[in-house]
């Protein structure tokens, strides 16, 4: 059984009965290897469609999850259960419960970094005050607004108005969490929350793949929320210096906010400033100063001043990328798509209204970005298989569009892999307003391919 990946969360979905006899059959060596190769922050096992489980059955999955956490420093746990199953799991593992429990997949997704910048309001209650605080801190660090309720009675009252909250967090448990540096997106800036004493371990807990993804898809301002940092050593200093060098290549800015130098040598500040890091006392100093935000690159996902030209290697792979796009569209719709024209140019979109766009980057032996722009009707048609019903819900369509683009990214990765080019793909990004994509891609030269699909046109654009 293979895990399904959404954003940076991978989930196994076993069905039926789960015991010590059959559980090993769900996870072959190939399945485990495939899971190890995923670029994820969280790995879960869903119990939504498991009607019976015993401890021996769960243990098989838990062992795999713990191994994965030890190797990759990711959060692991179980999700999608009811209150009865939650109690059973707690009884099975008691004080040895060292993995997380999320009542739903939707709740789990709140505890990982995404490309989205919309903070969610979340009602939160847990009988254990330390769990309550840990969840609140994590949710806050990931950019959400947790409403923490102190008593069961108050929680039951507030639960009566579910429409006020994006999610209601109960029957949830954080086990060995906070292994990764928490990440949130505010506008077009990415904020990382760091704390305590920073040493060489920052290299493991900081999600460098996510950071590279963000650079590749156009983010240019990165802020370290360092209010909770007590001190750092030379290994952490080296890490941040290297990060600054790689950011410079993309013309990106990295800032520290709230870092004090009572216990950190002041020479470190000088070294970091020399590497291009900026220091601010308060987060508001940046986020509420529009001029400064624009100057730092956080007002829009604008491309770097240096435009990166297409390489011969990338152009050589163009037929493969187009084939990946067309064949995915054919697979999802059983309708034909055909190439109409192809030019090297900057991105040109006629009638940017009534269109959705999405992008996915890849980096490694080759780097670049695929941009797709669809009329809304085509986007809906392309996603029907994933959504399952006709919908006008823009969020659902854009989420499915991200899944659709992820399949294309996966195919492109396979095509490149067959030619011994190892690449990783970024998280897909979707745009309900094509103008914000055009702003990011305005100076980028690339190959624009116009394609037709059932009488409509859509655009494929490959750039760096």
């Amino acid at each position, binding site marked *: 059984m293979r895990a399904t*990946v959404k954003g940076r969360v991978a989930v196994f979905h076993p*069905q039926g009965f789960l015991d010590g006899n059959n559980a090993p059959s769900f996870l072959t060596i190939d399945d485990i290897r495939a899971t190890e190769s995923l670029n994820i922050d969280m790995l879960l096992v869903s119990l939504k469609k498991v009607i019976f489980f*015993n401890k021996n059955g769960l243990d098989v999955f838990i062992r795999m999850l713990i191994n994965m956490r030890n190797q990759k420093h990711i959060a692991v746990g179980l999700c999608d259960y009811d209150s009865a199953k939650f109690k059973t799991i707690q009884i099975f593992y008691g004080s040895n419960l060292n993995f997380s429990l999320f009542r739903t997949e939707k709740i789990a997704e709140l505890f990982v970094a995404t490309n989205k910048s919309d903070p969610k309001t979340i009602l939160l209650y847990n009988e254990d005050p330390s769990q309550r605080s840990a969840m609140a801190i994590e949710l806050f660090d990931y950019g959400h607004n947790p409403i923490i309720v102190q008593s069961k009675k108050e929680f039951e009252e507030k639960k009566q108005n579910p429409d006020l909250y994006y999610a209601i967090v109960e029957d949830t448990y954080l086990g060995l969490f906070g292994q990764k540096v928490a990440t949130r997106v505010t506008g077009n800036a990415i904020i990382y929350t760091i704390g305590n004493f920073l040493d060489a371990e920052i290299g493991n807990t900081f999600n460098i793949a996510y950071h590279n993804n963000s650079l590749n898809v156009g983010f240019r301002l990165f802020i370290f929320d360092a209010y909770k940092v007590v001190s750092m050593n030379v290994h952490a200093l080296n890490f941040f210096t290297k990060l600054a060098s790689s950011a410079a290549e993309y013309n990106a800015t990295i800032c520290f906010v709230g870092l004090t130098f009572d216990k950190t040598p002041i020479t470190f500040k000088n070294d970091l400033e020399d590497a291009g890091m900026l220091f601010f006392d308060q987060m508001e100093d940046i986020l509420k100063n529009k001029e400064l935000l624009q100057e730092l690159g956080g007002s829009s996902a604008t491309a770097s001043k240096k435009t990166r030209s297409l390489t011969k290697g990338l152009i050589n792979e163009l037929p493969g990328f187009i084939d990946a796009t067309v064949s995915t569209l054919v*697979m999802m719709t059983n309708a034909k798509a055909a190439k109409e024209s192809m030019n090297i140019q900057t991105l040109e979109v006629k009638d940017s209204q009534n269109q959705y766009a999405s992008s996915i980057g890849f980096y490694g032996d080759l780097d670049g970005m695929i941009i797709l722009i669809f009329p809304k009707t085509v986007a809906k048609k392309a996603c029907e*298989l994933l959504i399952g019903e006709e919908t006008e819900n823009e969020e659902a369509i854009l989420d499915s569009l991200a899944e659709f683009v992820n399949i294309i990214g996966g195919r492109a990765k396979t095509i490149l892999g067959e030619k011994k080019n190892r690449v990783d793909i970024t998280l897909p990004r979707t745009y309900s307003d094509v103008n914000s994509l055009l702003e990011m891609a305005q100076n980028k030269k690339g190959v624009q391919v116009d394609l037709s699909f059932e009488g409509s046109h859509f655009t494929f654009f490959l750039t760096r």
Partner: protein
Amino acid sequence: MVTKDEIVHYIQNIPPAPSIVKQTLDFTRAGDLTKAAKCAEEDPALKLYLKTLVNRPVYGFRNEVTDLPQIFGILGVSTAQQILYNYLMSVLVPKKWDLFELDHHAFYDLQASLSNKWTKILSHLGLLNHDNESAITLLPASIIVCDALFGTHKHEVEQLKSVKSLDYNTILFRLCQLSLFDICNEIAKKWELPETVSRVVHASSGNDHNLNPTENVLAQWMHLLLFFELSQSTYVSAGLNEFIEFKIDFVQDIYESFMQVVEYDACNG
């Protein structure tokens, strides 16, 4: 991916029930097992199938049974009818499974195990009759159909499933507005199976409404039985656990009784 044209082509190519099997079934339904055995003797493939199947461990006979009248006598009317339908199904079984990692033995064991447990369930429900007993034989047709339609699209399905947890039945329905169970109904029509059989098997997908209370109960038990079997190691390894969506809510209220009827020990494994 799978198209409506491919489905139409598949349905057109389902072979009709062979005349000897039809006659044997008619004698069996009429309760004349001696004539049924005599008729079955004329088809060497059917004879071999019956001998091989009856002597598999799942039937629990200590000594090898080779004589057809003896086989029919041991089986009785209902089980003989079930086995004849299972034989019809074997006509559809692919020489080589493309989508699922199954072999003939694993598939026949699945048929036999489903049939045995289904008989126990019907006894428990007080709904034991020839048609109800035969219903279970059509269920594995959905697996055969799934393998036939998706076998050449395995890689595409894997890519789709990498981003969304979708079962084959849902994928097929969203693409072609036809489910695997709709195609099973077409098989049932071609083989002139009773309509009640195809209605119950169709409803066992857990997606049907407007069922009468008895059909609903049979569909619930069949759905849970299918997932009980598809949770066995052999079938999990074969990839059958992801074949259709398990509807927990549909079977929740029969779960406790089911565990008793199939004598499942919760401490197992």
